[in-house]
């Protein structure tokens, strides 16, 4: 079931995948409000909501069938007529406001979507995905990444060649040492050192 198969992409709070929280009829009516955005973007910390929306749009065009809000085939632009259609200015303003709010960054409170980004570590066999919204600072992110990649760490530590990956504190030291530095690829494709740009 494609919930919210809306092409009104400015409203990014609509689910693409299964409704978040998976609340069904027989289940407890308690809702979590958690959204399961299956769409991801590459690790670009400077998230542009327009770019995200554009990616979404391409994906949706290929995957959606009957759309609720059909892509309107606009006739050649007619002159704007004052007061037509007869929707009260109050209501028009409200709707315009909603569109504006949705256009703001997806991190906006209540906007709903998680901000998943791919994370890769040199030498790791596979990549991980992390929800940036879960963390409030670089330190938190760094710790989380460290935990995530703890199972992969091999290499230069010790002459034994094999790391004792159950030893967490050593792991943390390793990961936090100068051997590994968190970096990210920004929208220009450049590798940047984490920490320069303020978290927000």
């Amino acid at each position, binding site marked *: *079931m494609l*919930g*919210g*198969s*809306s092409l*009104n992409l400015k*409203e990014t*709070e*609509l*689910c693409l995948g299964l*409704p*978040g*929280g998976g*609340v069904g*009829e027989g289940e407890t*009516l*308690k*809702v*979590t*409000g*958690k*959204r399961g955005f299956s769409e991801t973007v590459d690790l670009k910390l400077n998230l542009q909501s327009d770019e995200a929306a554009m990616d979404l749009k391409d994906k949706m065009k290929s995957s959606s069938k009957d759309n*609720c*809000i*059909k892509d*309107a*085939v*606009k*006739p050649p632009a*007619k002159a704007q*007529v*004052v*007061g*037509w*259609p*007869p*929707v*009260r*200015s*109050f*209501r*028009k303003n*409200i*709707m315009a406001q*909603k569109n504006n*709010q949705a256009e703001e960054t997806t*991190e906006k*409170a*209540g906007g*709903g979507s998680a901000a998943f980004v791919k994370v890769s570590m040199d030498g790791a066999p596979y990549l991980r995905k992390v929800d940036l*919204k*879960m963390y409030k600072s670089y330190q938190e992110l760094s710790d989380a990444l460290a935990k995530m990649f703890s199972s992969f760490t091999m290499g230069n530590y010790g002459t034994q060649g094999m790391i004792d990956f159950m030893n967490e504190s050593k792991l943390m030291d390793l990961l936090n040492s100068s051997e590994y530095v968190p970096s990210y690829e920004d929208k220009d494709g450049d590798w940047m050192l984490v920490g320069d740009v303020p978290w927000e």
Partner: protein
Amino acid sequence: MSHDPAEMSEDDERPPPADRGRVEYASPHADQVLENVLENVLVFLTCRRDRSSVSLVCKSWCRAEALTRSELFIGNCYAVSPARATERFERVRSVALKGKPRFADFSLLPPDWGAHFAPWASAMAGAYPGLEKVYLKRMSVTDEDLAVLARSFPQFKELALVCCEGFGTSGLAVVASHCRQLRVLDLIESEVTDDEVDWISCFPDGETSLESLIFDCVECTINFNALERLVARSSSLKKLRLNRYVSIVQLYRLMIRAPQLTHLGTGSFSPSEIVQQGDQEPDYASAFAACRSLVCLSGFREIIPDYLPAIYPVCANLTSLNFSYANINAEQLRSVISRCHKLQIFWVLDSICDEGLQAVAATCKDLRELRVFPIDAAENNEGPVSDVGFLAIAEGCRKLQSILYFCQQMTNAAVIAMSNNCQDLVVFRLCIIPRYRADRITEEPMDEGFGAIVKNCKKLTRLAVSGLLTDRAFSYIGQYGKLVQTLSVAFNGDSDMGLKYVLEGCSSLQKLEIRDSPFGDSALLSGLHHYYNMRFLWMSSCRVTRRGCREIAQQMPGLVVEVFSWNNDAQDRGEENDTVETLYMYRSLARRVDAPKYVEIL
């Protein structure tokens, strides 16, 4: 408020004291007894139309009626002067005033046109010390006016401001703090300036008499803690409509304090902060379940559809549901509407599509009023709702009385179907958004559809037309629309004949608003026999000329004929043969003294 068009009748002059003395001298007691008896009886007469009839019987009945009228309704604030009204009716407890013409809602009236509440406020301050209720619609109200209300009427209980502007939170603060017996404070679709005054905190301490607090249109933050305390000490509160700055968590806190609510506006219906996975969220559904008397639900201003299931517990009892700010799709709607078997009033956005309307039609067999608003107000070839959803409603909701439907495409067949199925229709307002659009399938004008509505729906009193219409449509309206009181026309018709048909045929016509239609002086002049029976006529961007308007003004001294355009002032009036941009005329016992420069009164 009822929309009974009956109003104050033409006033008789009161007999001078000398005459009265002479009559009394002849039979002093009989006259007095009659009036006393009459007054005691008339006190029970509440219907405006009846009161109007009573006042026309004779002078003493007129006097008795005036003394016993406690509810004053003035459908056009410029129809009579405040002084005259307060002089005739001495013992009024409730006043309802309507100001600007409806097309002001669509930016067709230049700003500062008028409808000021101030002269009424000061007249009433002197005349009605016992005033309890004020209802204003499309009036210009200032903070000072609100202060006058708050200071002048110690018994003041109910204030409703609908589609008003000119005031702010500082005015609200004065009302909250001074009106100690306040039961009702309803702000509906009004523009409220943010003066950064914490008006919620201005309600007096201790138990309040509040029964209704509606502020969903107030576009500024409020002191939530103060609101929570206010709700906690208002045990009579039945109606609470929050603005979009109240989050769903805050809503929860209010609901658990007020399970007695019957009408609830939910505010934003989303969290104000990011909800982390694993966060403990309140049990919203149980809060709704606790409100056993809830019958009317609205709000959902920034809805996150995931929270919709919280309202399931109340759906079975709902008679009124307003989703018109909720961008939800058919599937999301279905889960709610399928439980709303008792629903009578439903407002919604067209995001629900034809499928959503089919779901409504399948369940809401008791539906009386439906309004479908457009998310996208642009003219398009296609839209989410069309004649398909309209037909579903026509077939499923046989008890429909009132419909407002915006769409991009429509067919005569669907409209005819509704005219046959929904015999109880009183209000039919169809807005086909693209101007001059014909029947989607036959490509014919929409004449037959609207014709069927006026012909088959024998109770119809309000009609708004749209789409491609020829004069034939208007001939149908004139021929069959004998009960039509309000008619709205926009971008329709071929010639003067269209308007002539209406003015000559619609004998109950009260309010006629026309824009961008090819009706000129000849048509205008064909209504002379009827204009005194009407509240107003509005014609903008039509073909009436200054000469034609002046002709009307000369022939009908009881009408105020206003002519204006957006860019005119006194120096730049234009020639007699020029078409006027806007004509607004209305019956009146007074001349306007507060008209802005761009208004010319002929």
